[in-house]
């Protein structure tokens, strides 16, 4: 069974109006459990829209989206996925620990379980000392780590991330990439990750999905196959050749 299976999905905004926009056309994509997929493409290619279709925050105009063998809507109601956004989207009025506990509260976990889980997650993202802080007292990178901890807190089978590192500086970004890979390996989660950065896509994923704009289509799917990432991977010639391959595919779609 595929973790995610999209068949012939299209998305049209404001159909029938002068402002009609065809955001996605003929999307077919199957994702195996435990894969790390990145969606990359120029602005307006509908990668965020595709992510929203998978999460059923938006419904496809035609076609179908299945997650874990059931309709995406059902998967959302079953709380099969965690989400992280470009901005951390933390609740200002909750402490860091309370932010991580938010989904657990909604799922009716007991207070003791929530406490235990949030401190585990804080250890995982190396923010153990900041449980009682408010988000406004944290740096951007730390906030993003809390957001990831929140997304992972209830061990969702699928993690959807929309340019989560987009606003971070390069150093923090590379560090966060390694953190995310470690978490991904430790948890076996299926990951769909939207990004603008070619090296990021290559470094992180098992497969890169290159998208073309107006309307958004899948132009190429590139298998990365770099094996376990290490610090040296970023300087590996195989890494660079994959970067070149993705770049060439992107050049093509931009014409």
């Amino acid at each position: 069974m595929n973790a995610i299976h999209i068949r012939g999905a299209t998305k049209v905004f404001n159909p029938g109006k002068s402002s009609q926009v065809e955001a996605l056309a003929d999307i077919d994509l199957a994702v195996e459990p435990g894969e790390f997929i990145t969606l990359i493409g120029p602005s307006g290619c509908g990668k965020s829209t595709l992510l929203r279709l998978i999460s059923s925050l938006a419904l496809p105009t035609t076609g179908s989206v299945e997650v874990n063998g059931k309709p995406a809507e059902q998967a959302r109601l079953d709380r099969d996925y965690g989400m992280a956004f470009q901005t951390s989207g933390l609740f200002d009025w909750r402490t860091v620990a309370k932010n991580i506990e938010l989904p657990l509260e909604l799922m009716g976990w007991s207070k003791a379980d929530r406490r235990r889980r949030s401190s585990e997650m804080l250890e995982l993202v190396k923010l153990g000392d900041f449980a009682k802080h408010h988000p406004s007292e944290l740096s951007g990178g730390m906030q993003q780590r809390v957001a990831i901890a929140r997304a992972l807190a209830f061990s969702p089978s699928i993690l959807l991330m929309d340019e989560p590192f987009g606003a971070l500086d390069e150093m923090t970004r590379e560090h966060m990439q390694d953190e995310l890979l470690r978490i991904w390996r430790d948890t076996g989660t299926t990951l769909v990750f939207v990004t603008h950065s070619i090296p990021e896509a290559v470094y992180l994923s098992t497969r890169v999905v290159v998208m073309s704009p107006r309307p958004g289509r899948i132009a190429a799917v590139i298998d990365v196959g770099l094996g376990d990432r290490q610090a040296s991977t970023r300087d590996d010639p195989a890494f660079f050749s994959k970067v070149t391959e993705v770049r060439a595919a992107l050049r093509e779609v931009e014409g």
Partner: protein
Amino acid sequence: MRIARQTATFVLFLALLAGLYTGYKAFGQAIDDRQHGWAVVGSVLPRTDDLNMPPISEIFGQFWETPGGQDRIYIRILLDEAVFTLREAFAGFLVGSAIGMAIALALAQWRRLEQGLLPYVIASQTIPLIAIAPIIVIWGRKNFDFFPWEWQDWMSVSVIATYLTFFPVAVNGLRGLQSPRPENRELMESYAANWGQTLWRLRLPASLPYLFAALKIAATASIVGAIVGEISAGVEGGLGRRILREAFNYTTGPDRLFASVLGAAVLGIFVFLAVTGVERLVVGRWGRGAAA
């Protein structure tokens, strides 16, 4: 530290105001008001004799005097009457805030309703209801007999305070409930959170900074409503009525009018500071600067 500095500036400001008042008065007295062709003093600006501008020392001295026919010193009387007015205002404030929040919730829930009703909520505030306060009191005496308790005149004044209170709460509450960013709403949606959970965990806390901005306005407005309501409705026992009585007896005791108006000013600032204090406690360190 910050509070100490603000208090210091406030005291300084009061001293400056008192100095300005006294200085202008002395200046006006020195030129005998308008006699030297100074058309400004005594026409655009008030005349400076003791009747129009009683000396500050006498205004404050008045606080400690016992007016004829009374058993308490004046400041004590003002204090008791301020408590009476505060009760009217507070009842109106509570009811008005509840109504305002209910309207905000309804409008936030149904966008059609917002488009249709919001213009009328705004228009309702241009209706000067406080001006028809006497009708409300007279009418309330006769017609508000369906309540399980006996309708008192001060409750009619509270109705006016309610009317002045609901509006800022409704408008700001709506803005606050709509303030969460799309990704926060999508997050709750991705958890398949229901309406109540989203309201309680996201929309309501997000609205608090906006709400407190409105509650400060509403608290002040409820005092204005209570004072004007008392004055125009002839409700005895509060500061509004006191000001009206002192205005009648102006020629014999102008300093008492000034003292009573001062009492109203203090009451207004007091409720404002009270709400600000509650805001600091509730919103504390996360809310600063969240709502413009």
